[in-house]
Each structure stands twice: as structure tokens, then as C-alpha cells.
């Protein structure tokens, strides 16, 4: 393979990985933006999304098959179900902790994460489940590089989801209220905005995006596991910080960038795939030292 082929191959890999990171990072950053909570259970909601999608697909596949139609249906249903579950978690576990010290709610989030992955572990006996799809292996050849339609559709779908989110947040009144709540909650109350409702909506959207990524990952890798949310949770958090935590375009950019950096990083001589995680968390540390607000993040001005 020529150097060009390698670069193209890594570009394709990086975009896929990056779009998963970006979708998960969006939920992290949106929740952080409005209630300053690092929702450590977010990666587990991605995992839960893929398991719920798996169950729905198993039920639906006798009727509509497990090609794109089946995957799309189970993705939409799983996004709704897991999104509502995210709102439930927020109501039960986080709302009562909002007035407590910041550390308490952080620990609550870790506890929710453990409950989720241990719960799924108990249900699945800790086994890998095969995420069966009939997508075939057709694709396009670019020189010596072969990229399947599945890969292209997955990247396309995540980009569509991100565009829809961007339009929602910038063009609709509810989206604008979400951004406004991140700026000043009291001012929002004085505009007649029901702040709790908008926070719940934010959890719903963030969680359903993670669920979408979970199903896409199941489709792409072909197997799912109760612990799959752990590393991607940390990576997505890294991506959100790289882009500037609290910034929605930042999460998209940070996710794609981290995916690409990781893919290309594996090509650096003497840094093999096994160094992938060291590479991305190394980037996080460097960024925190040199630009702690992230690429698109703003310096937070402490209000009196």
C-alpha cells in the first residue's frame, strides 16, 4: 500500500470512530452546559442504546428483516426509549442532588454508571452478543482502499443527526431556550421558560444521540458488550474537552478530531494500535496544560 492509500484508509477509519465520539460527546457537553454536571453515566447510556436496539431489532427482524429498514426502525425506537430513560435518571438521581455540593452529584453519576453496566452484565451474563445484520460487504474502491457502503452510511447518518441538532438548537425557540439556560437560568424563568422542562428535554436529546451512536457501533463492529460504554465515555469526554466543554459545535469538532488523531496516530512508527488510548489521553493532558478551555470554549467569567 502506498502512503496515500494508508492515509485514505485512516481517514475513513478516523471519520467513523470520530462520528461515534462526536455523537456521545454532544450529550456530555449539552448536559454540562446547562447544569454543570459531568454525567459519567453517559457512556453507559450509549451501551444501553445498543442493547435496547439489539432487543428491538431481534423482535422486528422477522417482519422487516435486519437490513437498513430494521436498523433504522430499531434505532429510532431505541433513541426514544433510552432518551426517556435518560430523563428518568435525571429526575430520580440528579434533580435531588442539584442543590447539594458539586462533588455529590458527580459521585451519583458514577453510581448510576455502575448500576447501568452491572445491570446489563447481570442480564447478559457478561457475554458478548452478536449484533446480527445483513448489510453485505459491498462498497467502493479507491485505489487499494476499500470503503463499504455501511461505513459511508454510518458516517452520513451521524452527520445528518448533528446537522438536525444544530438546526434545532439555533433555529427553534426550544433550542434557543436550551442555550439560554446555559447562560442564565434565572433570566430564563423571568421569560416564562419552564427551566426543569428544558433540562429534561436536554437530557432526552443528549441521551438519544448516545443511543444512536450505540446502535451504529453495534452495526459497525458486529458485537456488543456491557462494558463497551466505559472507554467511549472517557473518549467522548476527552472529545468534549478538546472542543471546549459546553460548546455544541465544539463537541462535534472535538469528536471528529479525536477520531482522526487516533487513527492517524496508529500509523506513527513505533506507536502501534495498542498505544491508541495513551495517544488520545496524552492529547487531553497537553490540551489541559496549554488551552484548558478547548478549541471553541470560552473563558468562563466568574459572576459576582
Amino acid at each position, binding site marked *: 500500500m502506498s502512503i496515500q492509500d494508508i492515509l485514505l484508509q485512516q481517514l475513513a477509519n478516523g471519520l467513523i470512530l470520530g462520528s461515534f465520539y462526536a455523537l456521545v460527546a454532544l450529550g456530555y457537553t449539552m448536559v454540562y452546559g446547562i447544569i454543570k454536571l459531568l454525567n459519567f453515566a453517559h457512556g453507559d447510556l450509549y451501551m444501553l442504546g445498543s442493547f435496547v436496539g439489539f432487543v428491538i431489532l431481534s423482535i422486528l427482524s422477522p417482519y422487516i428483516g435486519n437490513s437498513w429498514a430494521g436498523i433504522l426502525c430499531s434505532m429510532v425506537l431505541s433513541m426514544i426509549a433510552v432518551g426517556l430513560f435518560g430523563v428518568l435518571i435525571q429526575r430520580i438521581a440528579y434533580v435531588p442532588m442539584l442543590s447539594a455540593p458539586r462533588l455529590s452529584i458527580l459521585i451519583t453519576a458514577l453510581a448510576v454508571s455502575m448500576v447501568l453496566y452491572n445491570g446489563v452484565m447481570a442480564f447478559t451474563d457478561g457475554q458478548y452478543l452478536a449484533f446480527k445484520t445483513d448489510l453485505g460487504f459491498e462498497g467502493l474502491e479507491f485505489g487499494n482502499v476499500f470503503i463499504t457502503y455501511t461505513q459511508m452510511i454510518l458516517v452520513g447518518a451521524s452527520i445528518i443527526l448533528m446537522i438536525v441538532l444544530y438546526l434545532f438548537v439555533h433555529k427553534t425557540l426550544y433550542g434557543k431556550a436550551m442555550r439560554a439556560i446555559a447562560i442564565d437560568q434565572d433570566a430564563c424563568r423571568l*421569560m*416564562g421558560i419552564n427551566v426543569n422542562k428544558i433540562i429534561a428535554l436536554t437530557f432526552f436529546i443528549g441521551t438519544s444521540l448516545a443511543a444512536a451512536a450505540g446502535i451504529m457501533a453495534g452495526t459497525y463492529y458486529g458485537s456488543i458488550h456491557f462494558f463497551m460504554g466505559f472507554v467511549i465515555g472517557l473518549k467522548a469526554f476527552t472529545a468534549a474537552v478538546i472542543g471546549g466543554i459546553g460548546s455544541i459545535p465544539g463537541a462535534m469538532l472535538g469528536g471528529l478530531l479525536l477520531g482522526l488523531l487516533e487513527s492517524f496516530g496508529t500509523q506513527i512508527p513505533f506507536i502501534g494500535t495498542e498505544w491508541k488510548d495513551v495517544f488520545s489521553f496524552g492529547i487531553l493532558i497537553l490540551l489541559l496544560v496549554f488551552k484548558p478551555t478547548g478549541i471553541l470554549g470560552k473563558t468562563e467569567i466568574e459572576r459576582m
Partner: protein
Amino acid sequence: MSDTLLEIENLETHYGKIHALRSISFSVREGQIVTLLGANGAGKSTTLKAISGLIRSTSGSIRYLGEDITRKPAHEIVQMGLIHVPEGRKIFKGMTITENLELGSFTLDDDAERKRRMDHVFDIFPVLHERKSRDSAFLSGGEQQMLAIGRSMMTNPKLLLLDEPSMGLAPFLVQQIMKIVLRLNKEGVTILLVEQNAKVALKLADHGYVLETGKIVIRGSARTLQQDESIVKAYLGEQ
């Protein structure tokens, strides 16, 4: 005599152990401009926050349009046409002027009406129209105050609570803001104005109340308050 729009009776609030308001009673009639005066920390802002539902009062009652709103959440009070323009303006920095105004009409479903109200705001504040697509963070203090008032007008208020609209503004801007307050009042909006700048506030107001450490110590028509030299000296400072 016109009808009573807002009636506060024996209102008490606490911040932790601090007793912020001590049995405050006063009323605002429809069409009036009423001003609450007093030094820093006297409880003026606390009174407004208690009325708009941002803080819960410990006892006493707040009646608006004949309904008890003492325990109503802030976002529901807004829907009754009682709008609070808070201290420090609290505009949404990072969002454009148009977006700020749109959020002012959050409770409205009618897009044509939204546009009509926005045109009205732009008519009163042409400077906002010129910069409507710009980030509100770059506005000057006076323009931010105009945006805050404009945003509250998007809700189509019956009663407007204004918390120190003159704060930090140059004298000619204070005059301009006060002219607008008067214009809104002429258009039928009842106004409860909190001010440290007593001279300016009493010029507009029908009635005034002076607060001191959480209690109303003086009440009367604006004219009497203005003429009483000792009151002006003792409570309102010389400005």
C-alpha cells in the same frame, strides 16, 4: 380611582438566617408608576424577586390581578403579564439581539404577533434594530438595558418590575431610559420601579416607598417625598 393591580401584605423573606424583608405591605394600582427607594441592601431587589417568584417568601401574601401568586412558580407568573427586568440586566450574552428578544416571547405561539411585538421594540429602540444580528455581549451598558427592557416588552406586560435601570449609566442615558419608562406607562403598562437614584425616580412616579433594612419606613405621593428635604437627605442621599 383605578383598580389595585398588585397587593403585598406582611411579606417576609429570609436568606438563610438573614431576615431580608420584615412585614412589607404596599400596593400598586393599575396605570401607576410606583417606586421603591432605599440604600444598598435595604431589600428593594429582594422585594421584586419575591413578587416575580425567583425567591420564596417565608410568610405574607402577594396578590396580583386578584389572584394569590405567593407560591406560583416564576415561569407561570410571567404568563399573567407580570414581568421582572432584573438587576444587572441578565441579557443572554453569546446570543444575538434578535434571539434575546425571541426568548422574551417564549410563551407566545403566534409568529405574526411575535414579529409585530419585535417591530414595536425596534421602533422604540432603533439602536437595537441596527445591531439585531450581533452578539449582545458587545452592547454598551445603556444598550444592554434597552435590550433588557425590550425583551420584557416581548412578553406584552401589564405590570413591569424594573430593578435599577439607571445603574452604571451616564446621566443622558438615564434620561433616555426614564423617557422610555414613561412612554411604556403611557401605553398602558403599570410600573414598579426600584431605584437608588431617588431624584430621577420621584420625577416619574406617582407614589414612593422608602425601604430601610427590610422595612418600609416612609410612604407617600412622589410629590410629598420630593418636597420633604429631610427625607431626601436622610434616606435618599444627595444626588
